[in-house]
């Protein structure tokens, strides 16, 4: 059974995000993720209002990070949301966006230990237990919520690198693989399997998502125009090993990165070519998107997250997903 998720970036006014969230629930999405960047609208405020206008869809931060937000605060956030929408709240956790963290001078130190300890803290605190912990990263002395949390909250871990993918499968309830291309998902699945094997977890019990950059429209050109800025950012932030895998020139990636750093958007976007779009997004008409999603499912994911930008016109793109994409995957 394939589950479908959608990601919203709360750059938009709260009522627009909520409007699209209601639309996403109506057409049958299973999960709704809202990104957490300090320079956008607050993720928990956004999720709280979404929770008030929806009834079925599962939702959560997708993803928050423990460098900027202490895991006890994350636990408090998801536990409070769980009070508003019992049983529908999930928690997406990752190491965060390097560029945004750099703006506040925060370094992504010891990511594996940080995520491992954070998951433990979130699970313990959000379960209402009293936590004493002397970790490598976090020290917690008798932290406990002053309210009850009736049901457990699943923790999903955003991952890209081999070790983080394995850790996500080992300790998470779900893995959010930051990739849109079957080659990347196939590689990732190897590490996900390794991680799951460490705890005798069955792969089918784990939610494994391709967390994609997605753009769908009535024509390829329209979809392409919207996805180019997102792809530029992904190329700029991708490690060499990933660029090599897709035969993308490291020099070109570097040019894009420099242009972004200097705010030369036109220059940055002008270097994005078809190979980059193919490697780092699902982009095009419904036929193209269905074909690519099919290949991702074949290599082992059981959730597809349609992530930012979704399309040139959000409402129309969600309608295209409803009428042309869903019939293929929501049987």
């Amino acid at each position, binding site marked *: 059974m394939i589950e479908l998720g959608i990601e919203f970036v709360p750059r938009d*006014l*709260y*009522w*627009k995000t*909520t*409007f699209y969230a*209601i*639309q996403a629930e109506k057409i049958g999405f299973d999960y709704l993720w809202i990104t957490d960047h300090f320079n956008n609208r607050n993720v928990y405020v956004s999720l709280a209002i979404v929770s008030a*206008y*929806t009834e079925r869809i599962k939702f959560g931060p997708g993803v928050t990070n423990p460098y900027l937000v202490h895991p006890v605060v994350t636990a408090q956030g998801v536990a409070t949301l769980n009070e508003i929408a019992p049983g529908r709240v999930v928690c997406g956790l990752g190491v965060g966006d390097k560029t945004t963290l750099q703006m506040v001078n925060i370094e992504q130190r010891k990511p594996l230990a940080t995520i491992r300890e954070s998951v433990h803290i979130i699970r313990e605190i959000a379960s209402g237990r009293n936590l004493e912990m002397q970790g490598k990263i976090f020290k917690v002395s008798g932290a406990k919520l002053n309210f009850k949390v009736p049901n457990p909250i699943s923790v999903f871990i955003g991952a890209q690198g081999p070790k983080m993918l394995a850790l996500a499968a080992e300790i998470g309830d779900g893995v959010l693989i930051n990739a849109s291309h079957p080659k990347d998902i196939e590689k990732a699945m190897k590490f996900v399997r390794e991680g799951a094997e460490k705890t005798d977890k069955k792969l089918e019990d784990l939610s494994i998502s391709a967390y994609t950059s997605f753009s769908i429209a009535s024509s390829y050109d329209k979809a392409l125009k919207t996805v180019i800025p997102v792809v530029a950012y992904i190329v700029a932030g991708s490690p060499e090993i990933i660029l090599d895998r897709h035969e993308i020139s490291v020099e070109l990636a570097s040019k894009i990165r420099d242009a972004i750093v200097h705010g030369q958007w036109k220059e940055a976007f002008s270097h994005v070519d078809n190979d980059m779009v193919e490697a780092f997004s699902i982009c095009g008409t419904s036929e193209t998107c269905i074909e690519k999603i099919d290949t991702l499912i074949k290599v082992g994911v059981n959730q597809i997250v349609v992530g930012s930008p979704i399309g040139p*016109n*959000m*409402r129309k793109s969600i309608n295209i997903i409803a009428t042309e994409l869903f019939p293929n995957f929501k049987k």
Partner: protein
Amino acid sequence: MTLEKIARNIPASLWNVASEKLIDITLNSPNASKMPSDLAKTILYYWQRDQLATEVGLHRLLDASMILEPDKTISLMEELGLSEIVVILKETL
């Protein structure tokens, strides 16, 4: 005439198309930040309950689109052949 009464004068046969187009005008408006929060929440309430293509829903959508995009709203009413409403809306400007 209030926007509520204007909404009542939209024939039921046009509710769906009017609602769809008013939603587009509202969501895609560059003036979206002018939307009063209370009105936004009322629209979300009706949207959640599938009532934007009803008299009450259209009333709220007209409220919003006349704040954000009065000219486009009037053009839409012209396009829908609602000439009486066009005259009244122009008077409210």
